[in-house]
């Protein structure tokens, strides 16, 4: 069964606004990643947060992790049309042989 569920499934905002998407998962994890997928292409890694971290930043991205609620959020600030894509969270248990479980994704549309 899917580990991660994302919310909302789809989001449409104006350029310059902030976009927030959420990921909830069911069991304990070691780390959580966020990926972006442009239409019909492969996924690109955005950011990783470990279970002992609460918040991480990378450029216009801010990720939070609340292990007590088993949830994470991805905030994209000052969105651009080029941010239009699907965003997926992926949870992992750690270790060198780690495999991850992907969520169902949030489809973000940024209107110029």
């Amino acid at each position, binding site marked *: 069964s*899917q580990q991660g569920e994302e919310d909302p499934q789809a989001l449409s905002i104006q350029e310059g606004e902030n976009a927030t998407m959420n990921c909830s998962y069911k069991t304990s994890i070691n780390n959580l*990643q966020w990926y972006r997928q442009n239409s019909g292409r*492969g996924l690109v*890694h955005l950011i990783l947060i470990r279970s002992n971290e609460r918040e991480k930043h990378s450029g216009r991205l801010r990720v939070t992790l609340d292990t007590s609620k088993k949830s994470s959020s991805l905030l994209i600030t000052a969105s651009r049309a080029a941010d239009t894509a699907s965003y997926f969270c992926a949870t*992992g248990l750690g270790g*060198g042989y780690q*495999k991850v*479980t*992907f969520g169902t994704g949030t489809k973000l549309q940024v209107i110029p």
Partner: protein
Amino acid sequence: DVKVTQSSRYLVKRTGEKVFLECVQDMDHENMFWYRQDPGLGLRLIYFSYDVKMKEKGDIPEGYSVSREKKERFSLILESASTNQTSMYLCASSKRDTLTYEQYFGPGTRLTVT
């Protein structure tokens, strides 16, 4: 630049055919993965491999097999294609370390089985 390539972007096969999907990575990664992606279901892991000739079943291995004879190449095989295997197939690779866990993806193969 890490590069993961897949043999075809689009593929059309008939029911019952044997189908080979090839994936090659050029970064000496130990781990390789095959996923399928369907609308509303996200990515689901079919098989993964953490070393040459090693393979582990993922969440949905039924109807698929894999082969990893060389470190850089990981093949997905549909022994007898069926219409419910129509999907986007994504290959990925990652290093065996605990620093980044980042997976690098190929562009995907959109397979249609008629």
